[in-house]
């Protein structure tokens, strides 16, 4: 009985031993790592079939709209077809590994299975056209892609992120605010 009575004290004793803290600490670290990697996987750039170097291409003076021409007139910006890539690359020596991958796709006449980086949930109907029409630059939403190699997602690009910008642009204009914060603008 007496021994049982000391349960609390034994717990207290246990708490004084280093092994307890080591085990607890390890467990916490593991848990946090799990959560962290889960969140990271949401925000990290996905692996792409080939490491497309945005920086180089932009540096060569190629406009965003050359490869993503949908942005200025429709909802989806679009990804370039293999034929478009090959249009330029067939005129050069493709020595880098990424270029080799492109060559393989182009020779096989297959499409490159890109993994989209900036994606929204399926119930969000994003349309590029009005954003470009409103004078936004690609960098406003996509970040400094021109300094990145493989495109990187922007963390926490969520509804509040969209709304902040919408509200800012509609500041003082009641009608515009109504349109830009209307649920049906993005959800249908």
């Amino acid at each position, binding site marked *: 009985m007496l021994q049982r009575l000391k349960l*609390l004290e034994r717990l207290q004793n246990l708490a004084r031993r280093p092994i307890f803290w080591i085990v607890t600490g390890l467990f916490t670290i593991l848990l946090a790592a799990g959560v962290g990697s889960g969140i990271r996987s949401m925000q990290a750039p996905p692996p792409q079939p080939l490491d497309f170097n945005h920086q180089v291409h932009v540096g060569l003076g190629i406009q965003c709209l050359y490869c993503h021409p949908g942005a200025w007139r429709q909802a989806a910006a679009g990804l370039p077809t293999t034929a478009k890539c090959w249009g330029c690359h067939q005129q050069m020596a493709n020595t880098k590994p990424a270029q080799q991958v492109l060559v393989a796709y182009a020779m096989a006449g297959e499409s490159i299975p890109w993994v989209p980086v900036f994606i929204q949930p399926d119930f969000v109907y994003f349309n590029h056209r009005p954003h470009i029409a409103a004078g936004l630059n690609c960098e406003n939403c996509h970040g400094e892609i021109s300094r990145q190699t493989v495109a990187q997602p922007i963390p926490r690009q969520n509804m509040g992120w969209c*709304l902040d910008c919408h509200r800012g642009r509609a500041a003082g204009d009641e009608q515009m605010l109504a349109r830009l*914060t209307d*649920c049906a603008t993005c959800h249908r």
Partner: protein
Amino acid sequence: MEEHKTLLALFEDLDPTAAAIERLRKLGIPDDQMNVISGIPVTEAMLGRPRQWSNVPRLALGGSLGGFLVGAFLAFGAPLLYPIHVGGQALIPIPPSIVVLFELTMLGMLVSTFIGVFLDSYFPSYRPKEYLPEISDGKIGILFQCPQQKQAQIVLALKKLGAESVAPAEARQL
């Protein structure tokens, strides 16, 4: 400074307890060095003790004010953060706001009352304390500090008044 010792006197009934307190006071133990421990809520008036000060009502008032403010934020502030119109009703309709204000005021009041008990009574505290399990069996204890030299005299006086036991109080694990 004199040496002080903490004693716990146990009584069966209310009347001897009251008398004992009176006696202690006469023996020079001030009220603030005494405490009564009992198994039922014995009011201070029964024993002729000074009235206990409680912060609980104040905390309750403060809590209800806090709750009211939170309610006011939810009712009047939140709709302005993202104005969404529904059913042709005003953005901030008064009658529903009253409901929100009421509920949050009451929530604030009750939660702060509860917390007030914890704060005022220093709950929870699991440190060893001077206590005897007989108290929850209906005995009334007087916990007091007395100067070393008066100890024998006081014990004798209390025993005379009907104390079941007067012993140095030992802090023990409850």
